[in-house]
């Protein structure tokens, strides 16, 4: 294997996934939910907690490594990592564990996310805690919420490329349709129609209620080991084929209006790295789990990761392309829009299910799945294969 290229390729595998129920309100606290998800993932893998020696999480996580290790009975930890930028860090947790295991720093890694945003506080409601540096340039003017910040990019995107709200609806609908097939999803029994979408209330024009993810209580976890070890685990391994992190030059966080080209976000540079270290190309991807805190992020990501050309993300969604049987089925568990918004971690677990062949919206014979973290913020991505 050539130095510096492909060192991580298929060297590790996801061998266990676990999660708690998702709900608007769960009685247990975040730490308890985290323990439940982690122990479920280890049980799924058939690995005892005492073997865990690596942890990876991402910021805005309330449960710290010490508490988790103590409660769950892990062994001596030799690697732990916390990735910045909230929802941009979900896939990076697996990337960090894969790197640590490949480098010999650890052998059994766990990544997790526990969150109570369905019943707990939202950071943008707190007037005393300012979000990072851009806040002084935005919040006094009433650009208060992530939805406002992404809506600003969306308006420009629609203007520049002639995309429409129907394209955003296509994203919301695909996620909802898949959630309608997934008993674990919050929107399991709640179909969405175009009429409902178009008549829904505005949050930040041009984004309406259904362009926004579900604030959710819940926790998830996954287990990463070497490909060699994976052969002895309980489940069919899902290989970590390629990974990427990206904080592009002159990037400014979610308020990305100060780049030369604000419509080409971190997805573009993450994709360059991801494909460069992969044997696969976008056309080889059978199914994708694309971070969808807001519908337009999916259009921007389709472009960034190379499924279509620049400005073609809207048109790509036409004709049921994102639905089961379409060109690129996306967010087959329902995504952040309709399964649960747990900072994108559900997308990782759903990617694993697709490649195990156990999704509630299974893509027949799926052998390659792209999973992405938050677009607009410094991001990360995984290319998984069976």
């Amino acid at each position, binding site marked *: 294997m050539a130095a510096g290229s492909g060192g991580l390729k298929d060297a590790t595998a996801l061998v266990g996934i676990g999660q708690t129920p998702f709900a608007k309100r769960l009685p247990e606290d975040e730490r308890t939910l985290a323990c439940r998800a982690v122990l479920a993932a280890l049980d799924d893998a058939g690995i005892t907690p005492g073997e865990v020696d690596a942890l990876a999480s991402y910021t805005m996580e309330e449960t710290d490594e010490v508490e988790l290790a103590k409660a769950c009975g892990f062994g001596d930890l030799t690697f732990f990592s916390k990735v910045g930028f909230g929802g941009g860090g979900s896939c990076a947790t697996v990337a960090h564990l894969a790197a640590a295991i490949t480098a010999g720093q650890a052998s059994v890694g766990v990544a997790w996310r526990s969150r109570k945003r369905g019943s707990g506080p939202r950071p943008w*409601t707190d*007037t005393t805690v*300012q979000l990072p*540096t*851009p*806040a*002084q*340039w*935005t*919040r*006094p*003017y*009433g*650009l*208060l*919420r992530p939805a*406002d910040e992404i*809506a*600003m*990019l969306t*308006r*420009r995107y629609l*203007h520049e490329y002639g995309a429409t709200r129907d394209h955003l609806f296509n994203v919301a609908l695909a996620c909802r349709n898949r959630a309608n097939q997934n008993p674990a999803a919050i929107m399991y029994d709640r179909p969405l129609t175009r009429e409902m979408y178009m008549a829904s*209330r*505005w*949050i*930040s*024009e*041009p*984004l309406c209620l259904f362009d926004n993810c579900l604030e959710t209580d819940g926790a998830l976890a996954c287990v990463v080991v070497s490909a060699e070890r994976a052969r002895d685990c309980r489940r069919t391994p899902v290989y970590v084929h390629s990974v990427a992190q990206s904080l592009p030059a*002159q990037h*400014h966080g979610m*308020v990305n*209006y*100060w780049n*030369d080209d604000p419509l080409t976000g971190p997805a573009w540079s993450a994709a360059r790295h991801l494909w460069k270290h992969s044997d696969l190309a976008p056309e080889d991807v059978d199914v994708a789990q694309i971070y969808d805190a807001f519908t337009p992020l999916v259009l921007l990501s389709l472009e960034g990761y190379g499924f279509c050309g620049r400005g073609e993300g809207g048109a790509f969604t036409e004709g049921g392309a994102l639905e089961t049987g379409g060109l690129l089925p996306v967010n087959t568990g329902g995504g952040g829009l309709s399964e649960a918004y747990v900072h994108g971690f559900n997308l990782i677990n759903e990617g694993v299910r697709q490649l195990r062949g156990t999704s509630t919206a299974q893509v027949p014979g799926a052998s390659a799945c792209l999973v992405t973290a938050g677009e607009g913020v410094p991001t990360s991505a995984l290319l998984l294969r069976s």
Partner: protein
Amino acid sequence: MLRPVPDTDGAPFWEYAAQGELRVQACAACGELRFPPRPCCPHCQSFESAWRPMSGRGRVWSYVVAHPPLLPDYAARAPYDVVVVELAEAPRIRLVGNLVGGAGEPLGSLPPESVRIGARVQAVFHDGLVQWVPERP
């Protein structure tokens, strides 16, 4: 309403705005403008900077119309527009603000449907904040 919480790099911007001036940080060595302000120049790495006056003319690059749930002071003004304005002399310098009916008028004073991408606007100042009004022909 929220007041800007300046960092050391951003403080001069707000001091000039309080005096009714729109100034943007520029590199004192190579002359490149940069926004948001920062300690050194990403082009030449010089730590010397100057604050260059702008004409205050610009165009709407994008905008949103915010609806509740919002912080109470803002909810009381909703729906209101928030714009991103690109400066006439430096289109890649883009400032977030509000398009209002006239200098000193509050957020939400202009009907949101009158905002358009590409509309020419002019900076005015009120209470230490930059506001934007439609440019008079």
